[in-house]
């Protein structure tokens, strides 16, 4: 019945097949070939030595793209990716950032729209003292499928990685988050932190979390944590007792969870647009 699917991404280390988390495939309505990406969808950027660059990528109609960025020594990148595609579209994108000595990459992602999202982010901390800081939110509602594969590779000495992902799932939505911290041998003195928090808004959702930590180096400090649970019932009771209905209460709880990530988006208009989008999605849906 199924036509041949195109492999899009995989976790760096395979596990049991029955869990269905080893690979992600390109959504059936998207035409995408990694080896032959049309020039318009394939952006290559760089941040020059010692400079600061801010970039924003917003997907509103175009379903797919790839961005590759080299951050030169001592440079700083602030990248924001926001995906607000219509609810019947598939979405595929890749982001690869190479971070040189003493450079910083700060990445903020809001993965909100599309029927099926398959996305990957790779941050290579190649230089000594490089910093990779990735914060993402996602919202699944209706029958949306969200598939995220984030990898931070720590190759230089004394690198620092921070990965925080906050999500909410509603209706019959499904999500897979694969988050990898990879300490390469030689990455002495490096620190990596990964944290995922998921709020489940009703029954019928499916959450899969795959937090990997790989290490070939002993002189590192790695930590990851995942917490998955229902909305805090006391909080919910408190809010609804103040006269708000359930969907408003849900919106408040989700926004509170997303805020630490949303606050990183400096463009006020874009932030307002995201908040509006979240509000609409939580109040209708089903």
């Amino acid at each position, binding site marked *: 019945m199924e036509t041949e699917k195109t492999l899009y991404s995989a976790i760096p*280390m395979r596990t049991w097949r029955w869990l269905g988390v080893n690979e992600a495939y390109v959504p059936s309505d998207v035409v995408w070939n990694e080896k032959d990406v049309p020039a318009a969808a394939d952006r290559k950027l760089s941040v020059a030595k010692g400079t600061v660059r801010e970039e924003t990528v917003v997907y509103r109609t175009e379903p797919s793209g790839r961005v590759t960025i080299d951050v030169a020594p001592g440079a700083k990148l602030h990248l924001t990716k926001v995906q607000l595609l219509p609810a019947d579209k598939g979405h595929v994108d890749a982001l690869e950032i190479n971070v040189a000595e003493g450079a910083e990459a700060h990445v903020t992602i809001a993965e909100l729209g599309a029927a099926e999202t398959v996305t990957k982010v790779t941050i290579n901390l190649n230089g000594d003292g490089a910093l990779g800081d990735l914060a993402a939110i996602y919202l699944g509602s209706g029958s949306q499928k969200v598939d995220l594969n984030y990898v931070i590779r720590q190759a230089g000495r004394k690198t620092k990685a921070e990965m925080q992902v906050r999500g909410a799932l509603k209706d019959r939505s499904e999500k897979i988050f694969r988050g990898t911290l990879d300490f390469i041998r030689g990455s002495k003195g490096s620190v990596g932190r990964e944290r995922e928090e998921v709020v*489940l808004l009703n029954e*019928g959702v*499916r959450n899969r*979390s*795959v937090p990997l930590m790989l290490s070939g180096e002993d002189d590192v400090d790695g930590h990851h944590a995942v917490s998955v649970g229902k909305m805090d019932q006391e909080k919910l009771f408190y809010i609804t007792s103040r006269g708000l209905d359930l969907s408003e209460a849900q919106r408040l709880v989700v926004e509170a969870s997303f805020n630490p990530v949303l606050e990183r988006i400096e463009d006020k208009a874009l932030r307002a647009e995201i908040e509006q989008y979240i509000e609409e999605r939580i109040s209708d849906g089903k």
Partner: protein
Amino acid sequence: MEDLTKKKTYVEDIERSLYDIRNEDRSLYKSAKGLTEEVVRDISKRKNDPDWMLQKRLEALKIYNEMPMPTWGPDLSPLHMDDIVTYVRPDAKMTGNWKEVPEEIKDTFDRLGIPEAEKTSLAGVGAQYDSEVVYHSMQKELADQGVIYTDFETAVREYPDIVKQYFMTLIPPTAHKFAALHGAVWSGGSFVYVPEGVHVDIPLQSYFRLNAAGAGQFEHTLIICEKGSSLHFIEGCSAPKYNVTNLHAGAVELFVKEGARLRYSTIENWSRNMMNLNTKRALVDKDGVIEWVSGSFGSHVSCLYPTSVLRGENAKCEFTGVTFSSKGQDLDTGASALLLAPHTSANINTRTISKAGGKATYRSAVKVAPAAKDAKCLVNCESLMLDDQSRSDTLPVMDIQADDVEVGHEAKIGRISDEAIFYLTSRGIDEKEAQAMIVRGFVEPISKALPVEYAVEMNNLINLELEGTMG
């Protein structure tokens, strides 16, 4: 920076002479190498299998031949099935009297301290040498209460109805290639039946030793704890070192009925040429509890992930594991829990240590089914690396399909902090002992869960492993 250039003494390997005693191979019979229908029929005939068992073996063989090798995990290429002897019958008959066990076999178990353990702290013991159980005993009062503890062949003959009802239902040959292999060539192992309401206060133990070179051990363990009963079962494994690869593909099926409690402890110290591809599963009914305590120290390659299927309301699983991977070892261990009913809970707690180029992988799966309202699951895995030649990887998966759940996962990786060593040495403790103290502290949650004799054995293993390793 000083901390970046710190040197470590590199230690090749530990002294394993206690475990690596190689007895002369005086087997009465060995099956032909490799795996064919003739070999399976021959094993079945020699074991006097009833026909239904032969049919099960042949069916498993068919599945084995059709199944692909796993596409994940450690490299299994050193394993050549055509060179593995699947059945070795030692030159000894099963006995209930230690004095009657042939001198050479007895000597081996004596050196490993098995009879002393029996005298002091066990309710019963079974010892398997190569493919057959050679010694079995149980305290009389347990037998009087209706507890059955026997080798698996006897169980097939004397309790066919119980065995038929449970055998390879939890680990069907279709589970994976090595489960199918087990189904085809299983031999030896233990059968325990604890009747309703009976509490076995002191542990039962079985000990497996593989002596013949290039052989496989495929023991089957089946434990049934009826309603409201309780049991602690301990399994120990070892083998001497040969230059040919040995294979261990046992299967452990545990049935924990309503309100029953079973603790299953393993200290495994196979020799460093063993491929340990073992499968363990427990099925837990309402209010039942399964507790796993699992120590993996030996083998060349291990794939071991005890699985708890919590199908009854309020069923619980506690998993405590420690894995120590040294030179030439690739130990891929962890646990799985399937939470299928309301109010079920799973608590998985592991520690892994890697050194001298050893590779330790923690792999787990937690699945919460839509029906599992108010399920709780906590996973905690910590990894300690003792040098920069080794590897330590963590690969947990959580699949949550219910909303009213609490699921938490935490993992840490790192090395012994210089501050801790400095603090201890400034208190007059030498550096080597300071490091050993920290490692013992690191595995304390596991040693606490073991009976004292086994905690001591585990500490000894850790001390042996650490000898000479300097931070």
